[in-house]
């Protein structure tokens, strides 16, 4: 069974949910899927389907990078840490000094994206700084 067949449900859902710039290609036995989902819910759903086909993502045959289209400047983002506060840093990098904290589940505002990983945000207290995007989920 080819990888495209194995992950057919995932690819079909990505297409039908309106993922833009959807790219699916197979390289050296790994299926690379990338695109921009119209909402954070679609992204979550795609990851759930991926986890259903490949329990705990342990096969290592997919690399999936789904961004969320609503993560644009001015968008509200939810802090999705496990439970702790999110460090807000002076610059984009963990070597940068912490200038503030955003609480778990707090809403912050996206000011701009320095890179896919580091986003400049403003907390509800008005502090501005860089935070890692893996802990920020766009809110519809």
């Amino acid at each position, binding site marked *: 069974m080819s990888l495209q067949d194995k992950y057919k449900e995932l690819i079909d859902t990505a297409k039908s949910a309106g993922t833009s710039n959807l790219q699916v290609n197979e390289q050296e036995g790994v299926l690379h899927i990338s695109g921009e989902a119209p909402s954070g819910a679609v992204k979550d759903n795609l990851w759930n389907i991926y986890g259903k086909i490949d329990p*705990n993502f*342990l096969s290592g045959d997919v690399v999936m990078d789904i961004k969320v289209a609503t993560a644009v400047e001015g968008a509200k983002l939810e802090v999705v840490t496990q439970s702790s506060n999110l460090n807000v840093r002076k610059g984009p990098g963990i070597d940068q000094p912490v200038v503030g904290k955003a609480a778990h589940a707090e809403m912050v505002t996206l000011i701009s994206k320095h890179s896919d990983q580091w986003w400049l945000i403003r907390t509800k207290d008005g502090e501005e700084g860089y935070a*890692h995007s893996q802990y920020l989920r766009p809110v519809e």
Partner: protein
Amino acid sequence: MSNKQLSTAILCMAFAAMVACKAKPTDTQIQAKVSEQLSTMPEVTADVKDGVVTLAGNVADDATKASAEATVKSTEGVKSVVNNIMVTPAAPPEPPATTATNTADDTLRTGVTNISKDFPGADIKVDAGVITVTGELSAAKWKTLKQALDALHPKKVDASGLTVK
């Protein structure tokens, strides 16, 4: 002996030394000449001690090595030449693919460093575009980590050595 006589004596000795130098080139003078003659071979270095010139460096072929020795031998004041020049054929240019992977690995490593501090149970390594995760993580943590790692666009995320609780 008065101070004046002493200084005159020193001057005389210094003059005598200079005359002696003129008669026989010093190592410094030989060094200068040899360096001038070897200026067309920047990869060859010369060291002079008691009139003996030691050549070192890396050249592409035997002809260059022999030519360097011949050039230096004819220099005034050179007693002998020790030729330690190594012949190393020019290395073929490194395949660009390797360089690209290394650069990609550096980018991946920076990304992984940013991410890994929040996942103390996991050991994350990068090699040739592949991220390998070992250790033990909860299912929820691993999902977050996998999403973050995939966003770095590796060739593969190998979690075969990871235990998910």
